[in-house]
Protein backbone atom coordinates (compact mmCIF):
# COMPACT_ATOMS: atom_id res chain seq x y z
CA UNK A 1 0.00 0.00 0.00
CA UNK A 2 1.30 3.49 -0.83
CA UNK A 3 0.62 6.67 1.16
CA UNK A 4 0.62 9.62 -1.23
CA UNK A 5 0.88 12.05 1.70
CA UNK A 6 3.73 10.25 3.42
CA UNK A 7 6.63 12.25 2.03
CA UNK A 8 5.13 15.75 2.63
CA UNK A 9 4.22 14.59 6.14
CA UNK A 10 7.79 13.41 6.70
CA UNK A 11 9.14 16.75 5.48
CA UNK A 12 6.78 18.58 7.83
CA UNK A 13 7.81 16.43 10.80
CA UNK A 14 11.49 17.04 10.07
CA UNK A 15 10.84 20.77 9.80
CA UNK A 16 9.13 20.71 13.19
CA UNK A 17 11.94 18.65 14.72
CA UNK A 18 14.40 21.21 13.43
CA UNK A 19 12.97 23.58 16.02
CA UNK A 20 13.94 21.25 18.86
CA UNK A 21 17.60 22.20 19.05
CA UNK A 22 19.61 25.40 18.81
CA UNK A 23 19.69 28.54 20.89
CA UNK A 24 15.94 28.82 21.41
CA UNK A 25 14.31 25.52 22.29
CA UNK A 26 12.25 24.38 25.25
CA UNK A 27 13.27 20.80 24.43
CA UNK A 28 16.95 21.58 24.86
CA UNK A 29 16.96 22.68 28.53
CA UNK A 30 20.04 24.46 29.85
CA UNK A 31 18.88 25.09 33.40
CA UNK A 32 16.85 23.41 36.17
CA UNK A 33 13.67 25.41 35.45
CA UNK A 34 13.68 24.51 31.77
CA UNK A 35 14.56 20.91 32.67
CA UNK A 36 11.43 20.68 34.88
CA UNK A 37 9.30 21.97 32.04
CA UNK A 38 10.90 19.68 29.46
CA UNK A 39 10.40 16.65 31.73
CA UNK A 40 6.76 17.65 32.24
CA UNK A 41 6.36 18.06 28.48
CA UNK A 42 7.70 14.57 27.74
CA UNK A 43 5.60 12.93 30.49
CA UNK A 44 2.43 14.65 29.23
CA UNK A 45 3.25 13.77 25.64
CA UNK A 46 3.95 10.13 26.56
CA UNK A 47 0.80 9.70 28.66
CA UNK A 48 -1.41 11.43 26.10
CA UNK A 49 0.09 9.32 23.31
CA UNK A 50 -0.55 6.14 25.31
CA UNK A 51 -4.16 7.22 25.98
CA UNK A 52 -4.74 8.04 22.32
CA UNK A 53 -3.27 4.71 21.20
CA UNK A 54 -5.41 2.81 23.74
CA UNK A 55 -8.57 4.58 22.54
CA UNK A 56 -7.72 3.85 18.91
CA UNK A 57 -7.03 0.20 19.79
CA UNK A 58 -10.38 -0.20 21.54
CA UNK A 59 -12.09 1.48 18.61
CA UNK A 60 -10.40 -0.90 16.15
CA UNK A 61 -11.28 -3.96 18.21
CA UNK A 62 -14.86 -2.72 18.42
CA UNK A 63 -15.00 -2.30 14.66
CA UNK A 64 -13.44 -5.65 13.87
CA UNK A 65 -15.34 -7.76 16.41
CA UNK A 66 -18.70 -6.29 15.67
CA UNK A 67 -21.53 -8.26 17.28
CA UNK A 68 -24.30 -9.19 14.84
CA UNK A 69 -27.55 -7.30 15.15
CA UNK A 70 -29.84 -9.00 17.60
CA UNK A 71 -33.21 -10.27 16.54
CA UNK A 72 -34.85 -8.67 19.58
CA UNK A 73 -33.03 -5.52 20.68
CA UNK A 74 -35.05 -5.33 23.88
CA UNK A 75 -33.87 -8.71 25.16
CA UNK A 76 -31.02 -8.04 27.58
CA UNK A 77 -28.00 -10.30 27.70
CA UNK A 78 -26.75 -10.29 31.28
CA UNK A 79 -23.21 -11.33 30.37
CA UNK A 80 -22.56 -8.61 27.78
CA UNK A 81 -24.21 -6.03 30.06
CA UNK A 82 -21.79 -6.91 32.84
CA UNK A 83 -18.85 -6.76 30.43
CA UNK A 84 -19.87 -3.29 29.23
CA UNK A 85 -20.15 -2.14 32.82
CA UNK A 86 -16.65 -3.42 33.57
CA UNK A 87 -15.19 -1.69 30.51
CA UNK A 88 -16.86 1.66 31.26
CA UNK A 89 -15.96 1.50 34.97
CA UNK A 90 -12.36 0.66 34.07
CA UNK A 91 -12.19 3.58 31.65
CA UNK A 92 -13.64 6.02 34.23
CA UNK A 93 -11.22 4.89 36.95
CA UNK A 94 -8.29 5.03 34.50
CA UNK A 95 -9.25 8.53 33.38
CA UNK A 96 -9.56 9.76 36.95
CA UNK A 97 -6.20 8.25 37.92
CA UNK A 98 -4.50 9.79 34.86
CA UNK A 99 -5.98 13.24 35.46
CA UNK A 100 -5.12 13.19 39.17
CA UNK A 101 -1.58 11.96 38.49
CA UNK A 102 -0.91 14.58 35.80
CA UNK A 103 -2.42 17.33 37.97
CA UNK A 104 -0.19 16.29 40.88
CA UNK A 105 2.87 16.26 38.62
CA UNK A 106 2.00 19.68 37.25
CA UNK A 107 1.47 21.03 40.77
CA UNK A 108 4.78 19.65 42.03
CA UNK A 109 6.63 21.11 39.05
CA UNK A 110 5.00 24.49 39.63
CA UNK A 111 6.17 24.41 43.25
CA UNK A 112 9.69 23.78 42.04
CA UNK A 113 9.46 26.48 39.37
CA UNK A 114 8.20 29.13 41.76
CA UNK A 115 10.48 28.19 44.66
CA UNK A 116 12.49 31.28 45.57
CA UNK A 117 16.15 31.30 46.49
CA UNK A 118 18.31 34.21 47.53
CA UNK A 119 19.30 35.59 44.11
CA UNK A 120 22.91 36.26 43.19
CA UNK A 121 21.83 38.90 40.68
CA UNK A 122 18.62 40.92 40.51
CA UNK A 123 17.64 42.38 37.15
CA UNK A 124 14.70 44.57 36.29
CA UNK A 125 13.43 43.99 32.77
CA UNK A 126 10.94 46.48 31.34
CA UNK A 127 9.15 45.49 28.17
CA UNK A 128 8.46 48.24 25.67
CA UNK A 129 7.27 48.29 22.08
CA UNK A 130 9.47 46.57 20.84
CA UNK A 131 12.58 46.14 22.94
CA UNK A 132 13.71 45.18 26.44
CA UNK A 133 15.12 47.63 28.93
CA UNK A 134 17.50 45.77 31.26
CA UNK A 135 18.68 47.20 34.56
CA UNK A 136 21.00 45.43 37.02
CA UNK A 137 19.93 46.47 40.49
CA UNK A 138 22.39 47.28 43.24
CA UNK A 139 22.43 49.03 46.59
CA UNK A 140 25.30 51.20 45.38
CA UNK A 141 24.00 53.73 42.84
CA UNK A 142 27.23 53.67 40.84
CA UNK A 143 26.89 49.90 40.39
CA UNK A 144 23.46 50.12 38.74
CA UNK A 145 23.87 49.11 35.12
CA UNK A 146 21.38 49.84 32.35
CA UNK A 147 21.56 48.05 29.04
CA UNK A 148 19.09 46.73 26.51
CA UNK A 149 18.04 43.50 24.82
CA UNK A 150 20.91 41.48 26.29
CA UNK A 151 21.03 39.87 29.70
CA UNK A 152 24.33 38.57 31.00
CA UNK A 153 24.11 36.13 33.91
CA UNK A 154 26.63 34.11 35.93
CA UNK A 155 26.53 30.35 35.39
CA UNK A 156 25.11 28.25 38.22
CA UNK A 157 23.76 31.12 40.31
CA UNK A 158 20.06 31.92 40.76
CA UNK A 159 19.06 35.07 38.89
CA UNK A 160 15.94 36.99 39.82
CA UNK A 161 14.20 38.99 37.10
CA UNK A 162 11.61 41.61 38.02
CA UNK A 163 9.25 42.20 35.14
CA UNK A 164 7.42 45.40 34.30
CA UNK A 165 5.90 47.00 31.22
CA UNK A 166 5.16 50.58 30.30
CA UNK A 167 2.80 50.28 27.34
CA UNK A 168 1.13 46.92 26.68
CA UNK A 169 1.44 43.37 27.98
CA UNK A 170 4.56 41.52 26.88
CA UNK A 171 5.84 38.10 27.89
CA UNK A 172 9.39 37.17 28.83
CA UNK A 173 10.45 33.79 27.48
CA UNK A 174 13.84 32.21 26.98
CA UNK A 175 12.80 28.63 26.14
CA UNK A 176 16.17 27.03 26.90
CA UNK A 177 16.17 28.48 30.42
CA UNK A 178 12.65 29.02 31.76
CA UNK A 179 8.95 29.23 30.97
CA UNK A 180 6.93 32.29 30.05
CA UNK A 181 6.11 35.08 32.49
CA UNK A 182 4.06 38.12 31.50
CA UNK A 183 5.15 41.75 31.82
CA UNK A 184 2.00 43.66 32.71
CA UNK A 185 1.68 47.46 33.03
CA UNK A 186 0.91 48.28 36.65
CA UNK A 187 1.76 44.86 38.02
CA UNK A 188 5.14 43.61 39.21
CA UNK A 189 5.95 40.01 38.29
CA UNK A 190 9.09 38.12 39.11
CA UNK A 191 10.78 35.03 37.76
CA UNK A 192 13.88 33.17 38.89
CA UNK A 193 16.12 31.01 36.79
CA UNK A 194 19.57 29.46 36.76
CA UNK A 195 21.72 28.80 33.71
CA UNK A 196 23.64 25.56 34.15
CA UNK A 197 26.04 25.93 31.23
CA UNK A 198 27.81 28.90 29.63
CA UNK A 199 26.30 29.88 26.32
CA UNK A 200 24.08 32.29 24.40
CA UNK A 201 20.35 31.62 24.57
CA UNK A 202 17.79 33.47 22.50
CA UNK A 203 14.52 34.69 23.96
CA UNK A 204 11.41 36.13 22.46
CA UNK A 205 8.38 38.17 23.47
CA UNK A 206 5.66 35.55 23.84
CA UNK A 207 2.57 37.76 24.11
CA UNK A 208 1.37 39.51 20.99
CA UNK A 209 2.23 43.15 21.62
CA UNK A 210 1.72 44.90 18.31
CA UNK A 211 3.17 45.21 14.88
CA UNK A 212 6.79 44.25 15.57
CA UNK A 213 6.06 41.59 18.20
CA UNK A 214 7.96 39.04 16.12
CA UNK A 215 11.04 41.30 16.14
CA UNK A 216 11.14 41.65 19.91
CA UNK A 217 13.90 39.23 20.73
CA UNK A 218 16.59 39.19 23.37
CA UNK A 219 19.74 37.26 24.20
CA UNK A 220 20.72 35.71 27.51
CA UNK A 221 24.47 35.23 27.77
CA UNK A 222 25.62 32.90 30.55
CA UNK A 223 29.24 33.43 31.61
CA UNK A 224 31.46 31.97 34.35
CA UNK A 225 31.16 34.09 37.51
CA UNK A 226 34.48 35.93 37.16
CA UNK A 227 33.85 36.83 33.51
CA UNK A 228 30.37 38.01 34.46
CA UNK A 229 31.77 40.30 37.16
CA UNK A 230 34.27 41.71 34.67
CA UNK A 231 31.45 42.36 32.19
CA UNK A 232 29.32 44.05 34.86
CA UNK A 233 32.20 46.31 35.93
CA UNK A 234 32.84 47.29 32.29
CA UNK A 235 29.15 48.07 31.77
CA UNK A 236 28.99 50.22 34.90
CA UNK A 237 31.69 52.52 33.51
CA UNK A 238 30.65 55.57 31.49
CA UNK A 239 31.05 55.55 27.72
CA UNK A 240 34.55 55.65 26.27
CA UNK A 241 35.63 59.10 25.10
CA UNK A 242 35.97 59.25 21.31
CA UNK A 243 39.68 59.22 20.49
CA UNK A 244 39.91 60.15 16.81
CA UNK A 245 38.53 62.98 14.73
CA UNK A 246 35.86 60.94 12.98
CA UNK A 247 34.43 59.55 16.20
CA UNK A 248 34.54 62.99 17.81
CA UNK A 249 32.51 64.27 14.87
CA UNK A 250 30.12 61.34 15.43
CA UNK A 251 29.65 62.31 19.08
CA UNK A 252 28.86 65.88 18.06
CA UNK A 253 26.33 64.68 15.51
CA UNK A 254 24.71 62.39 18.06
CA UNK A 255 24.20 65.37 20.37
CA UNK A 256 23.00 67.67 17.58
CA UNK A 257 20.57 65.29 15.84
CA UNK A 258 17.37 63.61 16.90
CA UNK A 259 19.35 60.77 18.55
CA UNK A 260 19.74 62.73 21.76
CA UNK A 261 15.98 63.18 22.14
CA UNK A 262 15.49 59.51 23.07
CA UNK A 263 18.79 57.79 23.93
CA UNK A 264 21.15 57.82 26.87
CA UNK A 265 24.92 57.58 26.60
CA UNK A 266 26.22 57.77 30.14
CA UNK A 267 29.10 60.21 30.44
CA UNK A 268 27.70 62.54 27.76
CA UNK A 269 24.89 65.06 27.63
CA UNK A 270 22.54 62.44 26.17
CA UNK A 271 20.25 61.35 28.98
CA UNK A 272 16.77 60.63 27.67
CA UNK A 273 15.10 57.44 28.80
CA UNK A 274 12.70 56.92 25.91
CA UNK A 275 14.85 54.57 23.83
CA UNK A 276 17.50 51.97 24.68
CA UNK A 277 20.59 53.00 26.64
CA UNK A 278 23.49 53.10 24.17
CA UNK A 279 26.38 53.57 26.60
CA UNK A 280 28.07 50.31 25.58
CA UNK A 281 26.16 49.78 22.34
CA UNK A 282 29.21 48.55 20.41
CA UNK A 283 29.73 45.64 22.82
CA UNK A 284 26.34 44.11 22.04
CA UNK A 285 25.86 41.14 19.79
CA UNK A 286 22.73 42.39 18.04
CA UNK A 287 20.88 45.61 17.30
CA UNK A 288 17.18 46.47 17.17
CA UNK A 289 16.17 43.88 19.78
CA UNK A 290 18.00 40.86 18.33
CA UNK A 291 16.71 41.69 14.85
CA UNK A 292 20.07 42.28 13.12
CA UNK A 293 23.57 41.06 14.00
CA UNK A 294 25.94 43.79 15.16
CA UNK A 295 27.95 45.17 12.24
CA UNK A 296 28.82 48.57 10.79
CA UNK A 297 26.56 47.95 7.81
CA UNK A 298 23.59 47.04 9.97
CA UNK A 299 24.10 50.04 12.26
CA UNK A 300 24.10 52.30 9.22
CA UNK A 301 21.02 50.62 7.78
CA UNK A 302 19.21 50.94 11.09
CA UNK A 303 20.05 54.65 11.47
CA UNK A 304 19.02 55.49 7.91
CA UNK A 305 15.83 53.49 7.64
CA UNK A 306 14.49 51.94 10.86
CA UNK A 307 10.97 52.05 9.42
CA UNK A 308 12.10 49.81 6.57
CA UNK A 309 13.60 47.20 8.93
CA UNK A 310 10.93 47.31 11.65
CA UNK A 311 7.89 49.19 10.27
CA UNK A 312 6.06 51.00 13.04
CA UNK A 313 9.03 51.06 15.42
CA UNK A 314 9.31 54.15 17.60
CA UNK A 315 12.63 55.18 16.10
CA UNK A 316 11.74 57.61 13.31
CA UNK A 317 13.41 58.00 9.96
CA UNK A 318 15.70 60.96 10.48
CA UNK A 319 17.31 62.90 7.69
CA UNK A 320 21.05 62.29 7.88
CA UNK A 321 23.44 63.49 5.22
CA UNK A 322 25.70 60.87 3.65
CA UNK A 323 28.84 62.47 5.08
CA UNK A 324 27.28 62.39 8.56
CA UNK A 325 26.50 58.69 8.52
CA UNK A 326 30.05 57.33 8.68
CA UNK A 327 31.09 59.38 11.74
CA UNK A 328 27.87 58.41 13.55
CA UNK A 329 28.39 54.70 12.80
CA UNK A 330 32.03 54.87 13.89
CA UNK A 331 31.06 56.60 17.11
CA UNK A 332 28.30 54.09 17.94
CA UNK A 333 30.34 51.04 16.96
CA UNK A 334 33.17 52.34 19.15
CA UNK A 335 30.99 52.53 22.28
CA UNK A 336 32.40 49.32 23.74
Amino acid at each position, binding site marked *: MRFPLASPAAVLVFCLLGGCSGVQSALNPQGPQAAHLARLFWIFTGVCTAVWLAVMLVLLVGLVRRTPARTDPLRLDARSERRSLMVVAGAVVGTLLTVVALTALSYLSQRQLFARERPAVTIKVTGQQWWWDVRYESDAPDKIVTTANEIYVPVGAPVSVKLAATDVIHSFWVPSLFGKQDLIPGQDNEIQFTASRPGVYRGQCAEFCGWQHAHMGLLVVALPANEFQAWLAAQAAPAAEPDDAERKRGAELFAAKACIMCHTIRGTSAGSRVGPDLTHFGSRKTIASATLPMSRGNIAAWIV*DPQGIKPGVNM*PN*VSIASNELDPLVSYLAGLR
Partner: protein
Amino acid sequence: MTRAVVIVIALAAVAAGCEREDRPLRSEPVLNDNRDAIALATNAPGPGAPVEYKSGARAQYEKTAFHVSQGKKLFTWYNCSGCHANGGGGSGPALMDDVWIYGSAIENIAASIREGRPNGMPAFRGKVPEDQIWQIAAYVRALGGFVASDVASSRHDQLYAHEGESRLPSPPAASSQPGLAQPK
Protein backbone atom coordinates in the same frame (compact mmCIF):
# COMPACT_ATOMS: atom_id res chain seq x y z
CA MET B 1 -32.13 43.00 -3.65
CA THR B 2 -32.79 45.57 -0.92
CA ARG B 3 -30.72 43.48 1.48
CA ALA B 4 -27.80 43.44 -0.97
CA VAL B 5 -27.95 47.23 -1.24
CA VAL B 6 -28.01 47.58 2.55
CA ILE B 7 -25.02 45.24 2.88
CA VAL B 8 -23.05 47.15 0.25
CA ILE B 9 -23.82 50.47 1.95
CA ALA B 10 -22.84 49.05 5.35
CA LEU B 11 -19.56 47.67 3.96
CA ALA B 12 -18.81 51.01 2.30
CA ALA B 13 -19.45 52.78 5.62
CA VAL B 14 -17.11 50.37 7.41
CA ALA B 15 -14.44 50.78 4.73
CA ALA B 16 -14.72 54.57 4.97
CA GLY B 17 -13.88 54.26 8.67
CA CYS B 18 -10.50 52.74 7.81
CA GLU B 19 -9.10 56.08 6.67
CA ARG B 20 -9.07 57.53 10.16
CA GLU B 21 -6.40 55.05 11.24
CA ASP B 22 -4.18 55.44 8.21
CA ARG B 23 -0.59 55.23 9.45
CA PRO B 24 1.96 56.75 7.13
CA LEU B 25 5.26 55.59 8.67
CA ARG B 26 7.74 56.73 6.07
CA SER B 27 5.92 59.87 5.05
CA GLU B 28 7.55 62.64 3.07
CA PRO B 29 9.52 64.21 5.92
CA VAL B 30 12.90 62.76 5.09
CA LEU B 31 12.84 63.99 1.54
CA ASN B 32 11.07 67.27 2.21
CA ASP B 33 12.52 68.01 5.58
CA ASN B 34 13.20 71.62 4.78
CA ARG B 35 10.07 72.55 2.92
CA ASP B 36 8.57 74.31 5.94
CA ALA B 37 11.77 74.76 7.87
CA ILE B 38 11.67 78.51 7.76
CA ALA B 39 10.34 80.74 10.48
CA LEU B 40 6.72 81.35 9.66
CA ALA B 41 5.81 84.05 12.16
CA THR B 42 6.90 87.60 11.57
CA ASN B 43 7.39 90.11 14.32
CA ALA B 44 4.56 92.60 14.35
CA PRO B 45 5.08 95.91 16.17
CA GLY B 46 2.85 96.72 19.10
CA PRO B 47 0.03 94.69 20.57
CA GLY B 48 -2.23 92.95 18.15
CA ALA B 49 -3.52 89.59 17.06
CA PRO B 50 -0.80 87.20 15.93
CA VAL B 51 -0.48 86.63 12.22
CA GLU B 52 -1.93 83.23 11.39
CA TYR B 53 -0.62 81.23 8.47
CA LYS B 54 -2.88 78.59 7.04
CA SER B 55 -1.24 76.82 4.16
CA GLY B 56 -3.62 73.91 4.71
CA ALA B 57 -1.06 71.43 3.43
CA ARG B 58 -0.55 69.94 6.90
CA ALA B 59 -4.18 69.86 7.96
CA GLN B 60 -4.18 66.08 7.46
CA TYR B 61 -2.20 65.77 10.70
CA GLU B 62 -5.07 66.97 12.84
CA LYS B 63 -7.61 64.86 10.98
CA THR B 64 -5.97 61.52 11.76
CA ALA B 65 -6.33 59.95 15.18
CA PHE B 66 -3.01 58.16 14.69
CA HIS B 67 -1.09 61.42 14.26
CA VAL B 68 -2.78 63.04 17.25
CA SER B 69 -2.10 60.07 19.52
CA GLN B 70 1.51 59.88 18.32
CA GLY B 71 1.74 63.57 19.15
CA LYS B 72 0.42 62.87 22.61
CA LYS B 73 3.04 60.16 23.16
CA LEU B 74 5.84 62.42 21.90
CA PHE B 75 4.58 65.30 24.05
CA THR B 76 5.35 63.11 27.07
CA TRP B 77 8.55 61.56 25.71
CA TYR B 78 10.13 64.88 24.76
CA ASN B 79 9.13 66.27 28.13
CA CYS B 80 6.91 69.08 26.84
CA SER B 81 5.08 68.56 30.13
CA GLY B 82 8.21 69.78 31.90
CA CYS B 83 7.06 73.33 31.14
CA HIS B 84 3.53 73.00 29.80
CA ALA B 85 2.30 70.39 32.33
CA ASN B 86 -0.06 68.29 30.23
CA GLY B 87 -1.40 71.47 28.68
CA GLY B 88 -2.18 73.19 31.98
CA GLY B 89 0.88 75.39 31.86
CA GLY B 90 3.71 75.94 34.32
CA SER B 91 6.84 77.83 33.47
CA GLY B 92 5.47 77.72 29.91
CA PRO B 93 2.04 78.96 28.86
CA ALA B 94 -1.06 76.82 29.15
CA LEU B 95 -2.08 75.06 25.95
CA MET B 96 -5.68 74.22 26.81
CA ASP B 97 -6.99 77.77 27.20
CA ASP B 98 -7.98 80.21 24.45
CA VAL B 99 -4.89 82.43 24.66
CA TRP B 100 -2.54 81.82 21.73
CA ILE B 101 0.36 84.21 21.88
CA TYR B 102 1.82 83.07 18.57
CA GLY B 103 -1.34 81.93 16.84
CA SER B 104 -3.40 78.77 17.07
CA ALA B 105 -3.14 77.54 13.47
CA ILE B 106 -1.25 74.25 13.18
CA GLU B 107 1.37 76.02 11.05
CA ASN B 108 1.98 78.58 13.82
CA ILE B 109 2.25 75.88 16.49
CA ALA B 110 4.65 73.84 14.35
CA ALA B 111 6.75 76.96 13.82
CA SER B 112 6.83 77.57 17.58
CA ILE B 113 8.11 74.04 18.15
CA ARG B 114 10.60 74.12 15.31
CA GLU B 115 12.03 77.62 15.76
CA GLY B 116 11.40 78.24 19.44
CA ARG B 117 9.96 81.42 20.98
CA PRO B 118 11.41 84.13 23.22
CA ASN B 119 11.58 83.66 26.98
CA GLY B 120 12.13 79.96 27.20
CA MET B 121 10.69 77.89 24.37
CA PRO B 122 13.68 76.10 22.82
CA ALA B 123 13.99 75.43 19.11
CA PHE B 124 13.72 71.78 18.16
CA ARG B 125 14.80 72.18 14.57
CA GLY B 126 16.97 69.22 13.64
CA LYS B 127 16.29 67.54 16.97
CA VAL B 128 12.72 66.45 16.29
CA PRO B 129 11.97 65.06 12.82
CA GLU B 130 9.64 67.19 10.76
CA ASP B 131 6.66 64.80 10.76
CA GLN B 132 6.89 64.44 14.54
CA ILE B 133 6.76 68.23 14.90
CA TRP B 134 3.49 68.21 12.97
CA GLN B 135 2.18 65.36 15.08
CA ILE B 136 2.97 67.23 18.29
CA ALA B 137 1.40 70.38 16.83
CA ALA B 138 -1.74 68.36 16.02
CA TYR B 139 -1.86 67.15 19.62
CA VAL B 140 -1.46 70.71 20.90
CA ARG B 141 -4.41 71.64 18.68
CA ALA B 142 -6.33 68.79 20.31
CA LEU B 143 -5.44 70.18 23.75
CA GLY B 144 -6.88 73.49 22.63
CA GLY B 145 -10.09 71.81 21.56
CA PHE B 146 -9.68 72.52 17.84
CA VAL B 147 -9.72 68.88 16.78
CA ALA B 148 -12.79 66.74 16.09
CA SER B 149 -13.75 64.66 19.11
CA ASP B 150 -13.44 61.35 17.25
CA VAL B 151 -9.83 62.22 16.42
CA ALA B 152 -8.68 63.79 19.70
CA SER B 153 -6.92 61.35 22.02
CA SER B 154 -8.28 60.56 25.44
CA ARG B 155 -6.89 61.89 28.69
CA HIS B 156 -3.90 60.21 30.35
CA ASP B 157 -4.86 57.57 32.91
CA GLN B 158 -2.84 59.33 35.59
CA LEU B 159 -4.81 62.56 35.16
CA TYR B 160 -7.97 61.02 36.55
CA ALA B 161 -8.75 61.64 40.20
CA HIS B 162 -8.61 57.91 40.90
CA GLU B 163 -6.64 55.06 39.39
CA GLY B 164 -7.83 53.15 36.37
CA GLU B 165 -10.71 50.81 37.15
CA SER B 166 -8.54 47.77 36.50
CA ARG B 167 -6.15 48.89 39.24
CA LEU B 168 -8.75 49.66 41.92
CA PRO B 169 -9.21 47.08 44.67
CA SER B 170 -12.22 44.83 44.27
CA PRO B 171 -15.42 46.39 45.59
CA PRO B 172 -16.55 45.04 48.97
CA ALA B 173 -19.01 42.18 48.94
CA ALA B 174 -22.61 43.28 48.42
CA SER B 175 -24.23 44.47 51.61
CA SER B 176 -27.10 42.41 53.01
CA GLN B 177 -29.21 45.57 52.91
CA PRO B 178 -28.96 46.96 49.42
CA GLY B 179 -28.94 50.72 49.35
CA LEU B 180 -27.56 51.02 52.88
CA ALA B 181 -23.94 50.17 52.08
CA GLN B 182 -21.71 52.44 54.14
CA PRO B 183 -19.04 54.38 52.29
CA LYS B 184 -15.57 53.74 53.70
